[in-house]
């Protein structure tokens, strides 16, 4: 029998640019798995629904997938906010929900059925900042982040903590809001504070504009970014403005590992476009689930199968586009049994010639 898997991503609305890439990643992975004969002979079918990046819509989509389509598990949703609303629904229905792009703190507090392979900023940023500080001999940095978005704000919170821990003084902290395209006021202020580097918790599209406008204003300092920077788009747009940027991330299109190169090539072939980290993580996520599914015998009783998957998934490991992957149990605030976070080692990249290059300290 086919294995029905639900995909709930934002395919329209403001978060569509991420949701669409994610959904592409899933479809590519499903195709590859099915082309190789499926899982223990069972083909994967994806039920893809648009959750529009809205919380009520996510709940509705989750309920439809769980109770009406009776999917085995759900991937998604795109935004952390939506996961906070829809995650409890899946958890209460004892159905695995697997987020690939939800990085906010507390997501896996929702319950034991909640999984994610999105690497948390708190795993990435300390290393990134430390490496950059050493490389550039940084004395002081400026910070800019998007303050109305859960993703960039929680990234900032981590940055702030890391900078405090590493005793790196901050000259000024600037914010912008989603949809802003003009960052010159903030950048002019940053320029006036004369930092050695600019720490940036932003999504790639905004980051590219920030870099361009920074150079336009005569800021020479290099950038340090988190997860959000990780898209080939960054350099398509910012060209050489991003030279010298440090990025910590589990994935890069230039990572030479064969699994990754195969993914990048397959993606380009299918979609005539460069993949990004969102697509890569989605691609890997489906492969992780496939690995777990291999080990269980599906009974056809949806309740039992869902439970079996929930028990098998934590043990699944793969080596995918984002490198070796395994889960680790989440530490929850309340002490209740929580879900599962990614346990993955990030790579540090330095941008050279408009490309991510794996950084190795001399």
């Amino acid at each position: 029998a086919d294995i029905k898997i639900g995909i709930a991503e934002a395919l329209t609305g403001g978060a569509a640019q991420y949701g669409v890439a994610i959904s592409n990643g899933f479809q590519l992975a499903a195709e590859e798995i099915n082309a190789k004969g499926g899982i223990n002979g069972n083909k994967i079918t994806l039920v893809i629904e648009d959750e529009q990046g809205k919380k009520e819509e996510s709940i509705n989509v989750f309920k439809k997938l769980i109770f009406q389509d009776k999917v085995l598990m759900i991937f998604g949703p795109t935004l952390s906010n939506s996961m906070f609303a829809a995650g409890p629904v899946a958890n209460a229905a004892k159905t695995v929900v697997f987020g690939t792009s939800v990085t906010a703190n507390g997501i896996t507090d929702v319950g034991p059925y909640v999984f994610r392979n999105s690497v948390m900023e708190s795993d990435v940023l300390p290393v990134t900042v430390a490496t950059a500080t050493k490389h550039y001999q940084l004395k002081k940095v400026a910070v800019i982040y998007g303050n109305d978005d859960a993703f960039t704000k929680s990234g900032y919170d981590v940055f702030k903590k890391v900078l405090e821990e590493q005793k790196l003084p901050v000259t000024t902290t600037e914010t912008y809001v989603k949809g802003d395209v003009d960052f010159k006021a903030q950048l002019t202020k940053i320029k006036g504070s004369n930092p050695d580097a600019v720490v940036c918790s932003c999504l790639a599209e905004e980051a590219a504009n920030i870099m361009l406008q920074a150079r336009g204003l005569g800021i020479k300092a290099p950038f340090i970014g988190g997860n959000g920077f990780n898209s080939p788009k960054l350099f398509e747009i910012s060209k050489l403005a991003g030279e010298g940027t440090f990025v910590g991330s589990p994935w890069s299109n230039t990572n030479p590992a064969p699994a990754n190169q195969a993914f990048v090539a397959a993606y380009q072939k299918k979609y005539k476009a460069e993949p990004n980290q969102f697509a890569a993580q989605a691609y890997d996520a489906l492969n992780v689930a496939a690995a777990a599914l291999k080990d269980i015998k599906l009974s056809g009783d949806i309740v039992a199968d869902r439970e079996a998957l929930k028990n098998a998934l934590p043990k699944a490991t793969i080596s995918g586009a984002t490198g070796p992957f395994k889960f680790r149990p989440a530490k929850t605030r309340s002490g209740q049994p929580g879900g599962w976070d990614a346990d993955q080692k990030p790579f540090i990249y330095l941008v050279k010639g408009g490309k991510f290059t794996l950084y190795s300290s001399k």
Partner: protein
Amino acid sequence: MLEQQLLNALTLGSVYALFALGFTLVFGVLAVINLSHGAVFMVGSYAALALVTHFDAPLWLAILGAMLISGTIGLLVDVLILKPLRARNAPHLIPMIATIGVGIMLTSAAQGMFGAEVLRFPEETLPAGEFIVGNVHVRALELAIVAIAFILMAVLFTLIKRTQLGRALRAIAESPKAAWLLGINVEGLFHVTSFVAAALGGVAGVLIGLDFNAITPQMGQPILHKGIAVIILGGMGDIRGALIGGLFLGFAEVISKAYLSSQMGDAVAFGLLFLILLVRPSGLFGRKLERKA
């Protein structure tokens, strides 16, 4: 840094003003808050982009083309939707809701055609030119935006205040019935206004798309939001108001980001707007006729 910030404020303010010009024109003449103006602005950007990338059109031609395309959309919206609504005496919020629908359609059509991700003009099409005066970095494109905003404002303002056409437009704005009786082709002028306003929105889209270089199906939303603030701050349908309101908002935003806190940029801008409205209940240039009975 102050000089740089003042320049930043001037350009941002001009961007708002440029967007608001067409918006306020429709508002002033048709008395419709056209919530599809943001989407038309977005269409302008994509149209120019498509002309440049697919047809290798030079920039000036692309801008003209974008004006034509967005203007046509404005015209179609007026002919196909607003005109029947006028004929049916729709209550005043109804046309606004229709334009919300149009906005949704345009946005999803753009996403269908161009995808959800951010697109850019190819670098070689961007007008180069950047100079440094003292400590201030200026780009040619920014100067162009400022200049165009001011020029368009001046042209439109003179047109409306001093010409027979302008008087006719104001007559329509107040009472279409009275205008018909004066021999004014009211429907015709509604169409023209819709076309011109949308074309202006289209130009704004191209210029701002070029300047900030981030074209997405959603790009019209945030600026629409600001645009509403601008035209109401300036005074309903007032052309000067669009410019002054735009500059005001630009300065409020930039200065509060620069000297207070960037978190507070919008809060300060909207807070000030709130206060200004309390003092001037009809906006900066709006006036209320005092006569009551």
